[in-house]
């Protein structure tokens, strides 16, 4: 029996940052299932390309920094899957790759990678894609018509306007609410199936991989703004329904907003952060240049997050206490 020495503690909590990331990645994979069932292998190819790009970029960075690749964290999978799920299924395959590479190489690694990036990498990747290639990022195929989407090649399709684009133009989307729930409306790959998203959110909160307050405040703020200032002539409830179920808002609220590496430290701070992000998302939808506002809003909220943190610390009286000898 050869004995080793190690510093205490010798027992630890079961939940680690790695397991939390793994749970998030599993939930993101679950989101891929309905599109795969409906359209074949293309969603898998998109997600695979994006995840592989993230993996490759992280490996390259690790090589350049001559350190052990930090792959066990599965943060690359979360970033890659989030990027792929926020893009349309008909986008050319290089688009998720470019967005994912940007997310890792520009928004993640220069700041020290997982847990250190001041911006949600996936949101930064999507914002980059939206600014550089808006046409490819916001053109959606019509899911009502049967298409064979080839897994790897660029696909020919009949473009349809997404509910978010219609709302932006002040038109009421002519889409059954059930389609919005099941994900048969035009929109980003992972953002359309609201029911699956809700189930994933519930699972993540129940297994404590994410905290619900950010998501709840995000959605509450967005819903309140949608009800108070509807963009289309309809009842407040209808406005809330369409605003919350269209575009990437729900996906961002569930998967990107609770990102532990950027949100404030305290529950109160996280509530403020979520509410700010939700309000900013609605402001971007109304006044912004693109139909998707949530990724941009998250970037803005990430920048404000340290300010919220320090404001909360000051309000709670955690600052300014001198040394007290016991």
């Amino acid at each position, binding site marked *: 029996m050869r004995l080793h020495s190690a510093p205490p503690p010798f027992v630890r909590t079961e939940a680690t940052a790695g397991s939390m990331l793994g749970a998030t990645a599993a939930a993101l994979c679950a989101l891929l299932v309905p599109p795969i069932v409906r359209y074949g292998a293309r969603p898998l190819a998109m997600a695979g390309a994006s995840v592989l790009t993230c993996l490759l970029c992280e490996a390259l960075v690790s090589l350049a920094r001559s350190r052990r690749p930090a792959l066990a964290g599965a943060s690359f999978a979360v970033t890659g899957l989030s990027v792929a799920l926020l893009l349309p299924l008909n986008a050319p395959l290089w688009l998720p790759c470019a967005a994912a590479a940007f997310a890792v190489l520009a928004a993640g690694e*220069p*700041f020290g990678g997982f847990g250190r990036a001041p911006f949600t990498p996936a949101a930064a990747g999507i914002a980059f894609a939206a600014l550089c290639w808006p046409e490819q990022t916001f053109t959606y195929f019509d899911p009502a018509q049967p298409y064979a989407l080839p897994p790897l090649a660029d696909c020919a399709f009949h473009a349809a306007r997404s509910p978010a684009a219609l709302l932006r133009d002040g038109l009421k989307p002519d889409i059954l609410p059930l389609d919005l729930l099941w994900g048969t409306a035009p929109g980003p790959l992972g953002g359309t199936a609201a029911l699956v998203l809700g189930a994933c959110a519930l699972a993540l909160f129940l297994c404590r991989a994410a905290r619900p307050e950010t998501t709840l405040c995000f959605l509450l703020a967005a819903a309140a703004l949608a009800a108070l200032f509807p963009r289309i002539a309809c009842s407040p409830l209808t406005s809330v329904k369409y605003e919350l179920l269209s575009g990437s808002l729900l996906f961002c609220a569930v998967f990107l907003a609770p990102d532990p590496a950027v949100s404030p430290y305290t529950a109160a701070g996280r509530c403020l952060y979520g509410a700010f992000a939700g309000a900013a998302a609605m402001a971007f939808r109304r006044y912004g240049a693109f139909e998707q506002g949530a990724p941009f809003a998250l970037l803005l909220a990430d920048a404000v997050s340290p300010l919220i943190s320090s404001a909360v610390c000051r309000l709670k009286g955690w600052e300014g206490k001198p040394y007290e000898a016991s």
Partner: protein
Amino acid sequence: MFAQMMLTALLAVTAENLLFAGGAGLSGALRAARNPGSVGWTSCFVAFFSLCAALAGIRMEPYLAPRPDAWLVRPAALLAAAAAAYLLLAVPLRLFAPRFFRRHAREIGPAAANTAVLAVPCAQRLFGFGAAQAAGYAAGTGAAFWFASAVLARALRACRNPDAPAPFAGLPAALIYIGILSMAFAGFTGAKVF
């Protein structure tokens, strides 16, 4: 009029945020962020000089607009106005509040030459602001400067964490931070800054 002022100030702070969307005056904001104690006063000076620049722009425009070489003379006139505004603030302060002036001399000068300040008359000419709106815009620029400095002060701390690669630690990471943040502002403005 007050409502107009406030609305324009809000415009300056948010969508037309010169600092992040356009990058004007960021050098000054970064400098202020490195020394967080000076942020408040620097923002006040920036607001004051923005107001001076905007009013000077309004005053000069009737004389400059008809000239064929307006593109050439306008910047020079503006710079001269900035020099005058600096003297307008510095001389009385030096005479009547020498201690205050000595403490803040390092902030007043850069604030007068700050690009955000010099950009205000351009914005004012572009949007056709009146005096009240220009005042609001100047106040908004000051507030935006304060906000940018506050954000950057914390960003600089985040950019110097123990996991960041050595070549990126500090300023390079902060520049990338600003780049990503200005992406968020570009989401408001789209493919144009103004």
